[in-house]
């Protein structure tokens, strides 16, 4: 259909066509060339620097593979990761925590690593258990960690309290609560209120011969939780542990830590974060075992975080090679040190800890000193555990701000947890 077009109309059409064309071509094509992997994790600066250095070493050995790294704070890590995965733009290799391994495996996000080129023979079997579901290996431990009480020796010494740090030394609950109450009397709270995290409740349960989960079911009832929160409640009244305003900020990271914020003299956490504490505290810190009244300390060796390969990755082989390098290569082990706990591979662990200095040495020393007190890993958390962990902390917020009693709070957690698990 030819029509007589005026000069003005032609120009108008041309401009419009150009604008329309640019909106279409914005979706570009795919280029060939070397394989590009994406690898994401969360953590502190020390972990980021070590990981980037290890990745650079990997790229040097495998010029055909390029690795893009992305890291950030724990806060929004999983929201971002889930959105990317759902949108088909997920990473090839990702760092996960205990609660999300089960969650992601259940939703078919993770690749089964059995039968791949990955070597698992030197990695502790009980650490591997956390990533094993229905006979498949969906996640690999990035390290080994155990619970600790990280404390400021100067503050405890000033209050005249001794803390057991050497191998063979331990303390019971009444010694521990006396100690933190004494420190609390001298000004800053003796310890960060440990009622906020389901992780520390899990230890407490094991000390009482129970467990958090029993297969896919809850392993405790409202009475257990009420008892636990009653202990922390009485400590809070005596300034043994932090006030609600400090406790509510806790999320396990060092940047939101009450200890690092100088609001408490000690804090329960995993020893994998000791390097982060030491680099951000600005003062001396040491690690002590958790208190226990019985033979079972409730402390366990477990992966602080795990690595997993995406089921939708188009470069699974390359991703597995990177994973294998991170956990099994001596050079990688040396660079990574104890930034994700001590290395999961036994040979590399001995090597790294044999020549460790500074913060890495502190982690190794603690792990060595507590070797006899640490039991096997607690096992994988079921699907729904991520929601339960969040609800646990949210309810504890209500308890410490006096909006709900410990008894009603405990009932609510149990009820919501049963809904999340079903």
């Amino acid at each position: 259909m030819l029509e007589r077009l005026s000069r003005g109309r032609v120009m108008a059409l041309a401009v419009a066509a150009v604008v329309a064309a640019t909106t279409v071509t914005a979706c570009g094509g795919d280029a060939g060339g070397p394989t590009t992997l994406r690898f994401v994790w969360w953590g502190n600066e020390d972990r980021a620097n070590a990981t980037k250095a290890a990745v650079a070493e990997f790229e040097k050995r495998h010029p055909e593979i390029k690795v893009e790294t992305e890291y950030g704070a724990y806060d929004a890590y999983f929201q971002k990761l889930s959105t990317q995965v759902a949108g088909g733009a997920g990473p090839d290799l990702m760092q996960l925590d205990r609660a999300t391994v089960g969650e992601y495996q259940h939703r078919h996000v993770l690749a089964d690593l059995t039968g791949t080129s990955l070597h698992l023979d030197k990695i502790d079997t009980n650490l591997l258990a956390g990533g094993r579901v229905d006979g498949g290996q969906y996640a690999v431990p990035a390290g080994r960690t155990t619970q600790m009480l990280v404390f400021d020796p100067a503050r405890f010494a000033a209050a005249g309290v001794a803390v057991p740090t050497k191998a063979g030394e331990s303390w019971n609950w009444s010694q521990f609560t006396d100690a933190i109450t004494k420190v609390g009397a001298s000004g800053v709270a003796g310890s960060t209120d440990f009622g906020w995290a389901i992780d520390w409740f899990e230890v407490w349960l094991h000390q009482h011969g129970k467990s958090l989960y029993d297969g896919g079911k809850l392993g405790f009832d409202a009475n257990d939780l009420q008892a636990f929160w009653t202990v922390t409640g009485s400590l809070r009244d005596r300034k043994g542990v932090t006030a609600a305003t400090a406790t509510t900020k806790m999320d396990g990271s060092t940047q939101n830590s009450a200890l690092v914020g100088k609001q408490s003299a000690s804090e329960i956490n995993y020893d994998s974060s000791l390097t982060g504490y030491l680099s951000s505290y600005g003062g001396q810190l040491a690690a002590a075992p958790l208190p226990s009244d019985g033979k079972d300390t409730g402390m366990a060796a477990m992966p602080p975080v795990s690595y997993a390969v995406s089921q939708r990755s188009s470069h699974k082989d390359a991703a597995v090679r990177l994973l294998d390098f991170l956990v099994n290569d001596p050079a990688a082990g040396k660079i990574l040190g104890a930034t994700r706990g001590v290395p999961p591979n036994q040979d590399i662990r001995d090597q790294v800890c044999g020549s460790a200095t500074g913060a890495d040495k502190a982690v190794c020393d603690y792990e060595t000193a507590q070797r006899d007190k640490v039991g096997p890993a607690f096992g994988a958390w079921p699907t729904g555990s991520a929601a339960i962990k969040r609800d646990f902390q949210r309810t504890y917020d209500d308890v410490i701000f006096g909006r709900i009693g410990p008894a009603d709070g405990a009932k609510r957690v149990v009820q919501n947890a049963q809904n999340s698990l079903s």
Partner: protein
Amino acid sequence: MRRTQGAAYLFLSPWIIGATLLTVGPMAASLYLSLTDYDLFDPPKWVGLDNYLVMFTRDDRFWAAVSTTARYVLLSVPLKLVLALAVALLLNRPRRGGGLYRSAFYAPSLLGASVSLALVWRAMFASGGTVDRLLAAVGIDTGGWVDQPQYALFALVALAAWQFGAPMVIFLAGLKQIPRELYEAAAIDGASPVRRLVSVTLPMLSPVILFNLVLETIHAFQAFTGAFVVSGGRGGPSDSTLLYTLYLYQRGFTDFRMGYASAMAWVLLVVVAGVTVLLFRGARGWVFYAGEER
């Protein structure tokens, strides 16, 4: 006629394509998802109106979020508008460097949506932060607003109110439109400044007030960034900053309940539309349009 229409549609095409792909399409998808159980990873499962039923009858946090959001809207919108109008009245007088003041007061609104500013806000209102120490210095010991459930929402309201730049500029434009003769006539009749404000400025400005009120109310219902950053995405302490949009985000992206989150989005849309209609209805009583008979 047809020839010109072709060019018109071609020119409109970027917008039409954008609106269809980026607005209408996703909205239709979200309406469908709101009737399903969708976890982001597996295909959605049809559940009918279940999401809406659970929301209204069995979700305590939903109602907590509704009441928090209602308080946030009722506090932040009037405060912001009063501040905006007060500053606009001050700036409306001719003075040296008026443009500079206007820019200075508008600046927070440009920065307002940014994450870094909300981080500064969190640091300022934390226990031991600037505001805490200033208040303590004059004998008011609150111990940090953002860490306490009874005060945390006020920190968010303050953050919102501080960003009064956009309504202020609109008020200023409205003030410039009011004929000077009205003020001269009022002054000759011996009307005091307060009287002139109440009897001349406010009635003449009422359409602009309505416009700002509607706009800011809609904005307040959609507030997210401040609450997300100040509470670290959790809506705490003790759910005291759990705004509706933040809870929606948590349901969708942390709990993987995207169907439920979509249903929440539609409820929000309906509520905001309803509130807007009510505001316009109510406006008949107090908004005065020039040239209109009363």
